[in-house]
């Protein structure tokens, strides 16, 4: 029971790190990015290549899983995404589905269809016993790492100059430019960090979520649930949503496997009926 809760939390935090970039681009920059999972997949495969094949240490692999997708994200943002910020949502949907499809097929071509795993260092395998509760070491690491990232993210958005710039740029790009803020650089950096975090999440999560070329499409709905249910007005909403989703999904699969993911979709739809703006959005006066 506690083990399930623990696994659920680990899963949820992972989902949050994976989806946090999407929460920011979708919530703040109003960009519907259905290809977000492709960056997570990129991170996963980078880690596989470096750790399994090139023999890098696990930690270095994780770092690369952040850096490479972040660079990729920055590049794509500068060359492609920035052309669709101002387009209608339909165009954004088409464009990013297109990118996701291309990523899926390209990875399939390059790496094959089979599922892959990142080799864990020995120290992270197995369980430790905490007051009679068996806790996976690796899951503990995930919780700690993701927790740190969450705190850092919250701090960066709410307290730093960069966060303030981002909010200004989103609120009113023209005025922000007038104040000397380099809006496009702010957007590019935000996008890059979001992609990097997705990549890190993809590498960390390969063990738990599984990693194969269909990752971007398989988990797209989960990321979207986190953002849509959590609301886009803060980072706390998606965080809570991710935790609930993680715990719900793990518990659901354990206690009622016959329903599968059915319960998750139902809950999402009910939430969106009751609170179309998300569960944790302060409803502003209309």
């Amino acid at each position: 029971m506690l083990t399930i809760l623990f696994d659920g939390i680990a899963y949820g935090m992972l989902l949050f790190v994976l989806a946090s970039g999407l929460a920011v681009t979708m919530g703040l920059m109003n960009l519907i990015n259905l290809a977000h999972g492709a960056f997570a997949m990129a991170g996963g495969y980078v880690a596989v290549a470096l750790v399994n094949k090139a023999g890098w240490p696990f930690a270095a692999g994780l770092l690369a899983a952040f850096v490479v997708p972040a660079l990729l994200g920055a590049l794509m943002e500068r060359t492609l995404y920035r052309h669709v910020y101002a387009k209608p949502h339909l165009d954004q949907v088409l464009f990013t589905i297109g990118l996701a499809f291309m990523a899926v097929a390209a990875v399939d071509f390059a790496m094959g269809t089979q599922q892959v795993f990142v080799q864990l260092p020995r120290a992270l395998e197995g369980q430790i016993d905490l007051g009679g509760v068996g806790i996976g070491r690796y899951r503990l690491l995930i919780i700690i790492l993701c927790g740190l990232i969450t705190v850092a993210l919250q701090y960066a958005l709410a307290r730093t100059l960069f966060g303030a710039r981002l909010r200004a740029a989103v609120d009113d790009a023209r005025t922000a430019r007038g104040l000397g803020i380099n809006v496009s650089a702010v957007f590019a950096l935000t996008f890059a960090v979001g992609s990097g975090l997705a990549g890190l999440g993809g590498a960390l999560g390969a063990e738990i979520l599984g990693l194969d070329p269909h990752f971007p499409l398989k988990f797209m709905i989960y990321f979207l649930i986190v953002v849509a249910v959590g609301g886009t007005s803060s980072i706390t909403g998606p965080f809570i949503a991710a935790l609930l989703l993680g715990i719900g999904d793990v518990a659901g699969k354990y206690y009622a496997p016959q329903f599968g993911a059915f319960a998750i979709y139902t809950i999402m739809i009910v939430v969106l009926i009751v609170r179309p703006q998300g569960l944790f959005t302060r409803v502003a006066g209309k």
Partner: protein
Amino acid sequence: MSALQGVLATAVADHLAARARWRAAELVFWGAALASVFLLPGKHLILAEIAILALFALSLDLILGYAGIVSLGHAAFFGFGAYAAGLLAKHALITEPVLGLLAAGLLAALLGFACAFLVLRGSDLTRLMVTLGVAMMLRELANRLDKLTGGADGLQGITMAPVLGRFSFDITGHTAYVYALAVLFVLFVVARRIVHSPFGLSLMSIRGNPLRAGALGVPVNARLVAIYTVAAGYAGVAGALLTQTTAFCSLDVLSFDRSADLLLVLIIGGTGYLYGGLIGAVVFKLLQDALATLTPQYWQFWIGLILVIIVLVGRERMSGWWHAAVAQGARRLGLRERP
């Protein structure tokens, strides 16, 4: 009323009526479709697939092209209709295809009616999520209820009676194609009536500017619910056609890829003039055929690339080129009427 106004009223009536008049190019289009029945007997299997896809795309055009609702889960209604028709036939409740089609269409329309209320709430993002979520939920449901649906193996053992008690489905796909084409044509004519009616005009106004539409007395939500229901029914009929003509139905009918491909089909042909889905279906299937022989496994890559290019070039600009090309072609053929 002054005499001048009388003249103007006549002009108004004429011009509104002219919107609904059949154009020469349309007659050519349907003439060609009819001719394919006789001239391309070896291609009837793929032509039936095209007709079904075209009907499905027509359904999406009704909500996207005319009412401006972006959907990522239109396969929900297609799949629902497909399973409904399959189950009705398998359990010998309705084996006559046309009746089965009606029943499946009505059931899908009911589902669409229920979903419409969800879809109307919230932003584009919520709409995307709800449409996507409903499709995923149905897929999961079909997967789990394997006693009923056959789960991942698909629904097997469907036997259809002859269409209208006379025309049995055959291995060359001849009956299938004629049947699918006839259904497509009938439903197309109905859709055409709808979009040229005052109701259709109000849909276009909602797509263009919902705020103003409401300020002119248009009951925006009621109209959207209505068209969403109709479109869901159309999608259900398309799904039912697929099940009936192939005597098989699998989870595939509810997949995300099907909804995404559908968007591409419609975007290729262009939205908001009804023929987009039809033309898109032809182009899409031909492309799929050509590319699949080139790189069977990686067909998805090319779909993605096309989507990306379409958006980067700009749908408006593409449709501009397309219209110019069609106009040019029509002029050559002497089909062009007054602008």
